[in-house]
């Protein structure tokens, strides 16, 4: 597996488009820090049953140090266990999952319609 051959990231980033989503959420008062949104986006993608993509060609700017993003490694542990093929590169998987999670958020965040409750509800239904 090509992913396993890579080394894992110590910093993760988001695409410009996803950064705009994060900034919109922050500007609208939904999140205090961009990192809160980034973390939630990873969880959302996982909750929605998305799979991390390999070799996605994006122009992601480095934004967050993995140590700050996941200080108790809980996210990485979850990724390792849920996506065993990414066991060696959970941060890379997290980065792509965040991207996918922010795409979901962007769909919801049309105007002022964004709702955490909706995400909670949809994740629960997806895993029922």
């Amino acid at each position, binding site marked *: 597996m090509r992913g396993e051959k890579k080394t894992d990231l110590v910093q993760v980033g988001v695409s410009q488009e996803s950064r705009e989503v994060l900034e919109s959420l922050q500007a609208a008062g939904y999140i205090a820090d961009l990192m809160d949104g980034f973390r939630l986006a990873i969880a959302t993608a996982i909750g929605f049953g998305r799979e991390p993509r390999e070799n996605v060609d994006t122009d992601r700017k480095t934004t967050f140090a993995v140590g700050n993003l996941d200080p108790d490694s809980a996210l990485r542990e979850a990724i390792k*266990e*849920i996506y065993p093929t990414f066991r060696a590169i959970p941060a890379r998987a997290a980065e792509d999952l965040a991207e996918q999670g922010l795409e979901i958020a962007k769909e919801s965040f049309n105007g002022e319609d964004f709702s955490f409750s909706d995400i909670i509800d949809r994740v629960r239904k997806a*895993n029922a």
Partner: protein
Amino acid sequence: MMLLKRLELENFGPYYGAHHIDFKGTSDELVLIHGENMAGKTSLLNAIRWCLYGEAKDRSGQAMSTLSLINQDSFSEGAKRLSVAVDVILLKDGEETSIRLRRQRQAKADVADPSAEKDFTEYLEPVVAGNILPKDQFDDIVNSMLPPRISRFFLFDGELLKEYEELVHEDSSTHARQVQRAIEMILGVPAAQNGKEDLAELHGELSRAYNKEAKKHKVLAATAEKAESLRDEVDELSKEQSRLIDSQEKTSAELRAVKDELAKHEHLADSARALSQAEEKILSLKEERALKEIQRREFARELWRDVLEPRLKHEVLKLEKERDEIASALHERNALERELAGLETSLEKNQCSSCGQPIPEDLRLKQQNLIQETKVTIADLDSAADQERQDALGTTIKRMREIAPAGVAEAMVVVEQDLTANSIESHKAKRKMEDAESDLRGFDKKVVPEFEAKRDRLTKLLGEIEKSIEDVEGQIETKRSDLKQSERAMNEKDEPSLRHLKIQKDLLEGLMEVYDMSINELIADLRGRVEAQASSIFRELTTDESYSGLRINQHYGLTILDKQGNAVPVRSAGAEQIVALSLIGSLNKLATLRGPVIMDTPFGRLDRQHRQNIMRFVPTLADQVALLVHSGEIDPDRDLEPVIGKISAELEIHHSESSRSEIRPRVQ
């Protein structure tokens, strides 16, 4: 009796250009004029008022300016004038006289853009029996025909109801007393009062002559001097009393106008309160929202754990299932391995593991086959019974379980529900604020306090005037009593040269007493007749069988009585209207002056049965009746049933644009 013959309007209110209504001018005429709200029904009533009295009033009783009366379209097109002519027939002592009264106001020649009353000139044209009379006779003709004070009983709209409500209160206001005087006027009381006043004047002259003569006699001179002085004082006090009564009436009218203005502004005061409440609400909702948003951001920080939880649970369940399957396979393999070992040992020792006897050859063969089959089964189980995988799964499950949820999801849902509710509330409050702001646009906030100050000042002034009137009346009473004493003292001297004057004076005093008694009896009699007549009409009009009639009070206020003759304390707006119509009906039947009745929107607060009762009664209300009605208060197909065959004409006010209404025959 006065009957309307024709009404002509030019550029009056919504009537652009020239319009007219022709009446039959007979004593059995019922005309219906249909018009929607704002079409110009009240303008017709106002046109007649304006022509006769030079003043039209708006709904709050305020006099309307000439500018507000001129048709706006014609004004902007340069026709800066309006006129109304009323043609009537006056039937008096069997003689019929045609009268035409025309009033016109137009901008002065040197005023291009009139903006105030001073910019207009008024033309009056009184024509009696085809002869144009001097304009200063206009008011005299109107006063002899339909004095302004009693016009309210002929040109009738909702205003009367408001005035009438004041009549039912025993502690009646000055205004109610004015209405009372108007009622007595229409009933002819002033004729008797004028007679008494004439006698009083004669008596005064005689008394002066008597005093003058008495002063010539030494024994009477001092008393006569005193009597003359007292009479002068009574005259002065009477003048003061008249002045005060005038002032009381003016102040009372002014106070009413101010109260009406305040009532008009009450709505704006309500809007100002609503605006302030909405602003406070918005502020409080904003603060609440800010707190909720902080909570939401705090929950959002940890929410990822709760969002992850369902997937982790799902995964854990999957892994646990796999682990259980491995455990089951391991368990089965162990059991088979034990069984295999037993079979192999037994075969090797050729001894049955159960009974210890040698194994027969056929069974040995079977046992060898079974060993072979067991080995195959064990080999099959090898992939499923992966102990290493089971250990790894245990670790994974343990780790997944260690990723604990934050437990904020439910709280987040509640916060978001609160925020949605906050948003709806905020939206509602904003709408209320916008409505209030719209109501208040252009509203000068100083107006209400100014009117309130004026109201308070006028109320105080009215109180002072009423107190002064009481004082003056008290003083007049005392002076009159003193005067009587002085006159009695002079009479006791029995001076022969004064006898003749004394006889005349006594005669006049006796006559005045007779007049006093007669007037009181007349008023009591009239009041009784009004009560009986109004009760009879009321019983005809009301649909409530528990009502037996009406009781009249000192001020001609009417109280509804039940079957037991007890007063009904609370009455609806509809009942109020029926009572008012009963009073008007009775006054018209008992009046010394008879004229046409024009009623604006008479059915507003009534149900169908009452409308039909009134329709049945209307033709008997006066010799000539015109009803101004709108479709919301009358259903022509059903409500007009009682007057089928009695309607002389049906007209319709067609309203095409805001400043253009037309009067046409109504098309059925």
